[in-house]
């Protein structure tokens, strides 16, 4: 059990070495101390020299790829890639949405996407989904895949948790992102990626089957 003095001690040590400070759950008093440290940091002689030119160039190149779609498959526009609710769902997957529309609850492995004021929306007939298959659906504000495993059905978000591109079913139990080649399994786990940080798993929709129809709780 560490004390505020030792947590702030480590934070200060990291800051003074220009290293990324370790993450921790900070109390109010600790946050205040951290803010004070950030205020005092500029007192050191020699102002922050600005960004590393190599970083500026790298980010510029990455933006060029993103905006000019060099990795985009022919025929797909960026708007289509982000999807109607792409940004919203991606933000929700990251837990960043705090308004009334969406509540995300992180369950151990599979976060759930539960709209505050959603309803049960039919998305597919059970008879139209083969075992092990992922069928895409779009409710107008949310996009996902219904997946059948034996006689059980679940639904995952179709929005890549990295930057919101819409995933495509790639066969053999895989959902793949056309933007950065990130691949997810049919239950949302990240299988492969080439990103600096592992993106979060895909959130699940609440799903039920009624009268041969798969429904998801969505908006």
């Amino acid at each position: 059990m560490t004390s505020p003095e030792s947590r702030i001690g480590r934070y200060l040590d990291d800051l003074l070495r220009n290293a990324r400070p370790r993450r921790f759950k900070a109390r109010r008093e600790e946050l205040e101390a951290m803010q004070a440290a950030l205020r005092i940091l500029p007192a050191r002689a020699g102002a922050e020299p600005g960004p590393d030119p190599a970083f500026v160039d790298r980010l510029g190149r990455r933006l060029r790829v993103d905006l000019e779609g060099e990795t985009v498959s022919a025929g797909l526009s960026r708007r289509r890639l982000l999807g109607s609710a792409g940004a919203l769902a991606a933000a929700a997957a990251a837990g960043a949405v705090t308004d009334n529309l969406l509540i995300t609850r992180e369950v151990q492995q599979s976060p759930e996407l539960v709209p505050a004021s959603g309803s049960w929306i039919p998305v597919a007939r059970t008879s139209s989904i083969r075992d092990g298959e992922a069928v895409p659906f779009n409710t107008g504000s949310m996009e996902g895949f219904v997946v059948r495993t034996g006689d059980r059905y679940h639904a995952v978000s179709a929005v890549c948790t990295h930057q919101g591109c819409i995933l495509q079913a790639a066969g053999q139990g895989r959902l793949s992102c056309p933007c950065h080649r990130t691949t997810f399994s049919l239950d949302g786990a990240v299988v492969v990626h080439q990103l600096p940080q592992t993106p979060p798993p895909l959130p699940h929709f609440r799903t039920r089957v009624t009268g041969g129809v798969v429904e998801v709780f969505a908006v």
Partner: protein
Amino acid sequence: MSLRANRALEVLEGMTYGDWETLYRDNVVAVYRRLHARVGNRPDAEDLTTDVFLRALPRLRLPTSVRAARAYLMATAKTVLAEHWRTSYSAPPAAEFLDGLDVGPPDDPADVHRGEERARALLARLPDNFRRVLELRFLRGYSAAEAAAELGLSVSHVRVLQYRALRRAATLAEEDEP
């Protein structure tokens, strides 16, 4: 090589950006500096700067006025900062962490000097024992162990002292800018 780009790319207020590359080159340094001032280290500043541009640029329709683009970049920076504090330190989305993020010309030298002056003024207002330990850590670059040796204290005593000193500095700063 100057980061400031050549004369042809300098853009003045009241004008518009016709292409995203100019928008980026004209604002990346200012965004980075403002973020760095609020996270205090290069790795975080680079990550958050990346997040700001990756989110904001695809949503800006060109041509866009310099003023509008900068406002949008700074609004995005505020959101990115708030998320950073929340996910890294479980901080509430309180306004005090986000103050001062405003639209302004890039590389404003006044911004840099103000930060240095305010920091020194804050240190000067601390009681002697608090000021000494923070000066050793911040201005002289002493480690906690070196500061302990210099002050004739144990390392854990230095940690207690610097923590209290920072909290006192926080209170003083809060009085200035409620």
